């Protein structure tokens, strides 16, 4: 067999990426890749998406100069306000894009996985708005942790399917969605929520989230007349990070990707105390891609941990794994405590309650302000309303 076959088969980021899925899913993924590549060149598709991003999602989101935080850290800090996107997080940028692709492909049903519930909510929103039957797989443990988001999804007509297999969290919800899709691809689109998984998901999700970086680039040039020295984003699977980083890859800008340090580097043979696949993981295959993952020496996937449900994933998108290896992106850690400090600080200093995920980016910046240079952008990927109960519980411990 010619190795060349592989390159046509699936986009690679260095050695990372690929398409490691059961044969039944190969064809649906190829069809999705073809449709997405065709539509990315289709002006009408872009007009439709841009209208929805503007009038429905509320884009462009502000790039806000955080006066008080800047004073505190002695560095000019701007916040990219993805918390103001409809639904409360950047997730809608991707679900709108993919739902329109699904529509053009003639699909009538959407399935999705969700951990924190934010991606599930963003899928439920497009399901209701664009007229899809929507089912969201969610681990039993996460359903218990995120009751409000379950109710939000149900209000918008989505069905939440409890996942009882494996660790009953996000990775198992992805497994279950892939199993569903292997039988339902004829009429169903699998709307993956992060820049991970098999080709074309890492590229497609990055492209739909790149609107964050494109706006930020224009906005910072307008406000400051120059490029930022650094950009900070949190990393679960990598969609908000790739979304803001992608348009800056060729610029002299330090890209800081903050993973969940959780309780620390510890692990048992089943559970890691963190969600830091780049920080503490190794090469392996998860959900269709070769990337950095948290695993035991035999290749069993570990359960991850973070106070932020959206960062509680034992893998990372293959493009980030690659960019981290080349040194273009710098992986960093913020543990639970640092994230909670970021959460409180941004609330008090700026009157903005960030999602616990985004609070990892804020917490990191506060901990290592010298890494930021004199002008930084922090991606506030979501708002913190969903996390209030978690934070109250945490503080009472």
């Amino acid at each position, binding site marked *: 067999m010619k*190795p060349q076959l592989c390159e046509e088969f699936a986009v690679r980021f260095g050695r990372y990426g690929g398409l490691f*899925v*059961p*044969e039944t899913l190969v064809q649906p993924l190829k069809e999705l890749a073809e449709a997405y590549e065709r539509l990315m060149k289709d002006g009408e598709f872009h007009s439709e998406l841009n209208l929805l991003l503007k009038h429905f999602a509320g884009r462009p989101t502000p790039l806000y100069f955080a006066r008080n935080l800047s004073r505190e850290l002695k560095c000019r800090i701007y916040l990219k306000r993805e918390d103001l996107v409809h639904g409360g997080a950047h997730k809608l940028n991707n679900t709108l894009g993919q739902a329109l692709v699904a529509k053009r492909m003639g699909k009538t049903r959407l399935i999705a996985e969700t951990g924190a519930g934010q991606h599930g909510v963003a899928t439920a929103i497009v399901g209701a708005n664009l007229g899809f039957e929507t089912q969201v797989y969610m681990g039993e443990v996460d359903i218990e942790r995120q009751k409000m988001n379950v109710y939000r999804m149900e209000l918008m007509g989505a069905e939440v399917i409890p996942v009882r297999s494996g660790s009953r969290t996000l990775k198992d919800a992805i*497994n279950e969605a892939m199993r569903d899709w292997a039988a339902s691809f004829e009429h169903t689109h699998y709307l993956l929520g992060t820049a991970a998984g098999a080709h074309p998901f890492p590229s497609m999700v990055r492209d739909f989230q790149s609107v964050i970086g494109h706006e930020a680039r224009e906005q910072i040039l307008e406000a400051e007349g120059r490029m930022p020295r650094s950009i900070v984003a949190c990393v679960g699977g990598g969609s908000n990070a790739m979304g803001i980083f992608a348009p800056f890859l060729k610029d002299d800008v330090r890209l800081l990707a903050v993973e969940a340090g959780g309780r620390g580097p510890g692990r048992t043979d089943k559970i890691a105390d963190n969600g830091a696949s780049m920080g503490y993981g190794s090469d*392996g*295959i998860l959900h269709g891609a070769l990337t950095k993952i948290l695993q035991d020496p035999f290749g069993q996937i570990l359960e991850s941990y973070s106070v932020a449900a959206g960062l509680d994933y034992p893998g990372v998108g293959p493009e980030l794994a690659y960019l981290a290896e080349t040194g273009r992106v710098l992986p960093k850690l913020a543990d639970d405590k640092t994230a909670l400090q970021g959460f409180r600080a941004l609330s008090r200093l700026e009157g903005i309650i960030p999602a616990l995920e985004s609070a990892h980016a804020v917490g990191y910046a506060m901990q290592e302000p010298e890494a930021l240079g004199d002008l930084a952008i922090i991606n506030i990927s979501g708002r913190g309303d969903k996390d209030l109960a978690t934070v109250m519980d945490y503080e009472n411990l």
Partner: protein
Amino acid sequence: MIIYICAGDPSPDATPDLVRRLAAAGADIIELGLPHSDPIADGPTIQAAAQRAIAAGMNTDVYFQMASLADVAVPKVFMGYYNMIYARGLDKFASDCARSGISGMIVPDLPPEEAVPLKDACIRHGVDLIFLAAPNTPPERLKMIVEETSGFTYLVARIGVTGARSDIAADTRGLIARVPGNKPKAVGFGISTPAQAAEVVRAGADAAIVGSVCVDLIARGEIERLEQLVRDMKSAIRAVKLQ
């Protein structure tokens, strides 16, 4: 007839004896599953078996010990997910297969396009790498898969995941008929009764692969019923072949 069991379920120690009993009951090939934490091609039955086996202490080292101990005359074939192979190292894994009497590998999440490095390792150690084709595999690709596979082609009887079903899909017969060339073809996913096994053989398959129903009987401790099922499947298939 190919019988799948999940190695280490209910316990690692039980596996070699189980393999011998299945061979004695008439299994022509034993497919020994290595349990994985995230088996995306498997339905609830095999998922549960994998969890039990991992909890009982099954890992890749133990797997190869048990495979060596299960000394049967019929071929043993590995079935498992690519990350387990990748974590051990492709060459070491293929060599461990050869040394423990495993003659082939089925890796459900590894399409031929991604399998070039593993295929090299398998060739070095004389182990077959068996590829899968599905009802939605288009003709050109089917041709490529049949060319690339060694040992036999694994025809996935239906879209979706593993698990016992009560019928044979129309898709299955279509897929069997579409396979070009004359390499052996085995049909699996959903086959649970002697009648279904006979039906796929009548439709042109060389073998039926039976998994979830066996795993289920093992989970319930009904080993004698399992042996009886294997004997019944075998005679149902033989009856078709004699026709």
